């Protein structure tokens, strides 16, 4: 086989004969197919960000569309509601009053804080209207209030699937991601299924503001046909950069650009011996995945334009968090008429063409969007700057502290996971302590 990845010459994979074989569903076969799948990805060796909107969007308008006043972090819904008659939906679109800034709060790195969120807003605030996301599911209000989790159905707005298609019905519970440094992310949303900020923003408006599965692309686009309203919002989100020196990574002509690439810790200020030792531990144990210099997201992305590439555009990974399901999240479909919960069965396709009817009992990650068996339990690698201010952690908010995060990656759950086997982590007590010191100052 000629591998696609890391080659600049002679591609085009040959996996002849593979698809005619009915593979057995054992772990060795799964691992082999997963390797084939991963090897078919042609990741760019260049540190670039072809998914950026950049100057195609208006930052000032974008901030307003996001739901913030121009000169403060106060909420302002004036230009942030998506309503009106939609020719795509064929009806009037109304909003429940949620705007982007409802759940991406500037004072919390554009995310939600830990703890009981009922102290954050009055009970009448649209924030607590979970009907759009999780319908009548009785778990919705509590998971939002206590854990900051909201329901999402990745295939909910796919107009080419029947309403009862399992890809439209599968429900997962995910955190509201912090948007800080989102411009440095290849693949958005927790599972990386959105390739551009425009896609992310469009999906969020559809998912959080209305109770039906209707799309209303014409409303989200704005008056122009080229998604200008979403581009504006994306352009503004791309400015959420901290520390500010990271901006140089976006611009190859910036005099500091190459320095940030050459020294992955150039913008990290370390003041103690423990922090410096922690940096070494990080280099040895964490940068296999958190390899974006100075940002510590994952730099790998498909070597072409985002929308050419079906999800996943970035490199998504299975580190075992979803299977652990520490919060015992129920993902079956809730039947309001009977109160019963039914297991969704997804027809996932393997590399060899076999269709595996997979009962969804926990968050299956990217597979819920891509339909690929090899994408089971894969999630995006998050950026780590200001990570100490972004608790709780993981896609399901299942780790309350950085200590819990490090302990998880030092555990058998991680080391036995698909990508944990590729990038094992075994820290002694001193290494653990030093790594935590380093992470706290990122």
């Amino acid at each position: 086989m000629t591998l696609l990845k890391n080659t600049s010459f002679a591609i085009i994979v040959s996996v002849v004969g593979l698809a005619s074989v009915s593979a057995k569903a054992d772990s060795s076969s799964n691992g082999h197919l997963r390797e084939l799948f991963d090897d078919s990805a042609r990741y760019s060796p260049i540190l670039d960000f072809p998914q950026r909107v950049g100057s195609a969007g208006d930052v000032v308008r974008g901030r307003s569309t996001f739901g913030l006043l121009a000169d403060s972090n106060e909420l302002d819904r004036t230009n942030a509601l998506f309503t009106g008659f939609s020719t795509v939906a064929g009806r009037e679109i109304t909003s429940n009053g949620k705007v982007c800034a409802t759940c991406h709060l500037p004072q919390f790195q554009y995310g939600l804080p830990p703890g009981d969120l009922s102290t954050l807003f009055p009970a009448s605030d649209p924030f607590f209207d979970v009907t759009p996301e999780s319908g009548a599911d009785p778990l919705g209000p509590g998971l939002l209030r206590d854990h900051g989790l909201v329901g999402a159905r990745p295939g909910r707005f796919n107009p080419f699937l029947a309403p009862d298609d399992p890809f439209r019905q599968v429900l997962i519970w995910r955190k509201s991601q912090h948007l800080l440094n989102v411009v440095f992310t290849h693949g958005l949303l927790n599972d990386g299924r959105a390739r551009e900020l425009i896609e992310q923003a469009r999906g969020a408006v559809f998912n959080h503001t209305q109770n039906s599965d209707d799309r209303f692309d014409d409303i989200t686009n704005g008056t122009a046909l080229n998604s200008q309203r979403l581009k504006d919002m994306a352009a503004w989100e791309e400015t959420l950069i901290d520390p500010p020196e990271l901006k140089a990574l976006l611009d190859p002509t910036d005099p500091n650009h190459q320095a940030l690439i050459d020294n992955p810790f150039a913008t990290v200020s370390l003041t103690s011996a423990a922090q410096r030792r922690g940096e070494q531990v990080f280099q040895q144990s964490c940068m296999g995945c958190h390899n974006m210099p100075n940002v510590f997201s994952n730099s790998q992305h498909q070597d072409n334009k985002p929308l050419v590439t079906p999800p996943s555009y970035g490199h998504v990974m299975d580190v075992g968090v979803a299977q652990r399901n520490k919060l015992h999240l129920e993902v079956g479909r809730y039947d309001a008429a009977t109160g019963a919960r039914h297991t969704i069965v997804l027809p996932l396709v393997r590399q060899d063409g076999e269709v595996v009817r997979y009962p969804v009992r926990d968050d299956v990650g990217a597979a819920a969007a891509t339909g690929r068996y090899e994408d089971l339990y894969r999630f995006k690698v998050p950026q780590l700057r200001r990570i100490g201010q972004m608790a709780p952690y993981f896609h399901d908010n299942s780790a309350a502290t950085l200590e819990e995060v490090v302990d998880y990656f030092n555990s058998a759950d991680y080391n036995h996971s698909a990508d944990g086997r590729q990038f094992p982590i075994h820290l002694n007590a001193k290494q653990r302590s030093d790594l935590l010191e380093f992470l706290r100052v990122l």
Partner: protein
Amino acid sequence: MPQWRGASVGIEEYVWAPPSGDCRKLKGTVRVDWDSAANSAHVVMKYRGLPRRPSIRRTEGVDFFPDPFHEFPKDFDNGVYRLWVIQGADPVVGTFYYDPATLELLGSQYDFPDGPPNGGAVIPVNIPLFTLSGSNAFEPDADGFAVHEYTIPYDNLQVESGDFSVARISYVPFNLCLGQPAAPARGQARPYVTPWLPVGQGPSFKKLLHSGIAFDIQLENPLDATAPGGNLPYVFGGVAFVGGPSFQGGIPNGQRFSLSSQIQNVSPIFNPVPGGNGLGCYPYLNEPHVSATNHCAP
């Protein structure tokens, strides 16, 4: 890249199946090696299980819809094969001209290179275009085996014969009342094809790779198989067969890449081939968007 029936098909294309209803033996690969320094890209196709000289029979209004912007025969015998090299996306945007009175499509900038028709009294609409190039026609031996290879310049995609570079294709409403600008794949989206463009107007192979590349072999009538470039009166015959796109993981056997999903940006990006690729496979029309809601209707 492995090639599977139905894996890489355009909107409103007819996906053929052998009359036996047995697709189990179909298999193919495409390999491309390129060398920018030598300015060459070499394409090798290998297939087995290809039916030799098949006949195509379609039914108008069911699995064939006449297309004034891409005319090709509905039925033919002694079919031959041709590889299409498809650029998944491209910054090329074409201007399409619509009649302001009837809202009917008049053509594009490629049909009217000297400027819009009607003395400029048109509604211009910008629509993205895909890019196609292809091999000469070929056919398998009596046992269904076929090997075909050719070399083209790296810096400028062109057809195997070197007579032309590429053609641009898109899926557009033939009447603006049936279009859905904010969600094109939910409105009328009929195939539109430009004439073949002169050599020199194709993208480089590098650009092709970065835009996403797909392959498909199609069936067409052997009108002039001995002419340079084979049969090139039209760009493609509307009959798809075996292909595959090159993105992560490719398309597994038995699945079809959904161009409608790509245009609409929804996933999963593939869905099952109707009838599958085993015993009992049958022909089908892929993702037709011939009719749509008429937004001009009272």
